[in-house]
């Protein structure tokens, strides 16, 4: 058994340029060839990446005080409502907010051409964005309305702050019961088990390479949208209690991350507004982590391959929406990536929503940053909740309002 490496030792190697970095995809082969012990000695850092729609994302913006001053109470950015229930000139623009007046699903499937995620992408791309705001006016903030162009370079602060990113594993969506194609956040799912839509980078995905959150925790420095940012909390719906396979890898959606990063440092290549037909707007975001190979256990975890990771196949035409039934089965990412899976005696073509090409590019970018000494690892100041500590994932305790409330 080798002696463990510390974060300090790994960072010293990053500074001296001696660090050995491989991507999570390469680590599969490294461990396959050298074995866990030798791989743990040789490799210092394994980089991961994922690029896909992450709905629970958004950005805080402080656009500066106008003359006369104004406490904005309702605001629109390129006609997309932004949340203004904060101090005078702070806004939060949520990724999935759609343009005011969008026809939504009135003519189904709606197209959702523009929304919060597109505003964020436009800001990152350096485009001018129109800010419209209204206020009731106060003695200290007399102004009642504003209509102006803003640009990211003029904002005091603009930072992404995402309640839930980088889901550790996810469902595979199929359509078993509807007599038509369905339009979901997992894309167009074709009728009669006509497609199996999945959305994870599998073996390259951050939390699948650190199944028990030994390395990724609060304070972990990450790649986010092309910039360096941080994990600041567990993500919403973080559920470490999901059943796991013999490698410790959850067999369904499990851990999640809350992330933060400076919008001004981001690149629109990694921050892409997307329109999901019949569903709504989302943000395709690039996230990557650098996992320290502290010991053999970390080498083993990061050597996970697509064949070792399974996902539940869930019907989205009825079961998902109504919380009914059981998964129709489980399937590995190796099978999903072959382009076709077997389900109920049928051959079902698969379609990803998460770009593996971009996930790989993120892992490679992070690797080059580390090799160039531009990205050091940060030890978590606190781990994410473990399976033992977590209450698990709760459904809403629905209490009709006719009953007595306020216990």
């Amino acid at each position, binding site marked *: 058994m080798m002696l463990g490496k510390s974060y300090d030792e790994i960072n010293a190697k990053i500074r001296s340029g001696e660090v050995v970095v491989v991507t999570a995809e390469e680590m599969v082969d490294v461990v396959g060839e050298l074995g866990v012990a030798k791989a743990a000695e040789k490799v210092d850092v394994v980089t991961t990446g994922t*690029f*896909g*729609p992450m709905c629970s994302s958004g950005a805080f913006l402080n656009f500066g005080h106008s003359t006369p001053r104004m406490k904005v109470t309702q605001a629109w950015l390129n006609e997309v409502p932004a949340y203004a229930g904060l101090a005078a000139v702070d806004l939060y623009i949520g990724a999935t907010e759609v343009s005011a007046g969008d026809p939504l699903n009135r003519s189904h*499937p709606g*197209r959702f*051409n523009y929304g919060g995620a597109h505003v964020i992408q436009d800001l990152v791309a350096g485009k001018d964005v129109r800010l419209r705001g209204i206020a009731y006016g106060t003695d200290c903030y007399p102004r009642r309305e504003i209509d102006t162009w803003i640009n990211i370079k003029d904002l005091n602060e603009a930072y992404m702050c995402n309640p839930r990113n980088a889901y550790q594993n996810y469902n595979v969506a199929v359509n078993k019961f509807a007599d*038509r*194609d369905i339009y979901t956040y997992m*894309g*167009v799912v*074709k*009728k009669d088990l*006509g*497609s199996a*839509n999945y959305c994870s980078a599998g073996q390259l995905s951050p939390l699948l390479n650190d199944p028990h959150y030994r390395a990724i925790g609060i304070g972990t420095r990450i790649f986010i949208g092309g910039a360096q940012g941080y994990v600041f909390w567990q993500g919403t719906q973080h559920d470490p209690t999901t059943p796991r396979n013999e490698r410790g890898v959850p067999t369904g959606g499990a851990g999640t991350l809350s992330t933060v990063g400076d919008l001004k440092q981001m690149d629109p290549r990694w921050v*892409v*507004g*997307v*329109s*999901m*037909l019949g569903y709504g707007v*989302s943000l*395709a975001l690039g996230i990557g982590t650098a996992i320290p190979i502290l010991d053999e256990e970390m080498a083993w975890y990061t050597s996970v391959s697509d064949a070792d990771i399974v996902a539940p196949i869930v019907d989205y035409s009825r079961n998902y929406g109504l919380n009914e039934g059981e998964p129709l089965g489980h399937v590995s990412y190796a099978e999903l*990536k*072959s*382009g076709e899976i077997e389900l109920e005696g049928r051959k079902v*073509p698969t*379609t*990803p*929503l*998460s*770009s*593996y*090409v*971009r996930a*790989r590019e993120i892992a490679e970018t992070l690797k080059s940053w580390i090799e160039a000494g531009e990205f050091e690892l940060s030890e978590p100041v606190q781990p994410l909740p473990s399976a033992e500590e977590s209450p698990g994932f709760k459904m809403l305790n629905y209490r009709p309002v006719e009953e007595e409330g306020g216990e």
Partner: protein
Amino acid sequence: MAERRIVLHFPKELLDQPVISTTVSRYDVGFNILRANITQDQEGLMVLGLQGELGEIESAIEFMRDQGVRVQPLDQDVVRDDEVCTDCGACIVVCPTGALSMDLESREVNFDAEKCVACGICVPVCPPRAMSIHF
């Protein structure tokens, strides 16, 4: 003799109707099936080369329209903006002809304009809007 290339969309109800043979028996045109598919909505999709005098071709197209077939000229051009495409793959299962497909090794999504029949299905499905159709 002229040739016109057209894309025909047959609604479900017309799938078992002999529209093409009725058309060629009524008008003095020849035809050449370049591609035929059933799409995601059980719509028939056919790319046809129609040969004959221009006037006859026009009337034949008019007749097919009257039968409820949607006819598009094939000089429509579908293009992909490779800068915008993220290789997400959301389009693969909706494309009826396999013009959009994934390279299983590189995981890149390839667009083969030769196979594209300009049906336009991928345009609103593509999440970052990389696909567009030009007339």
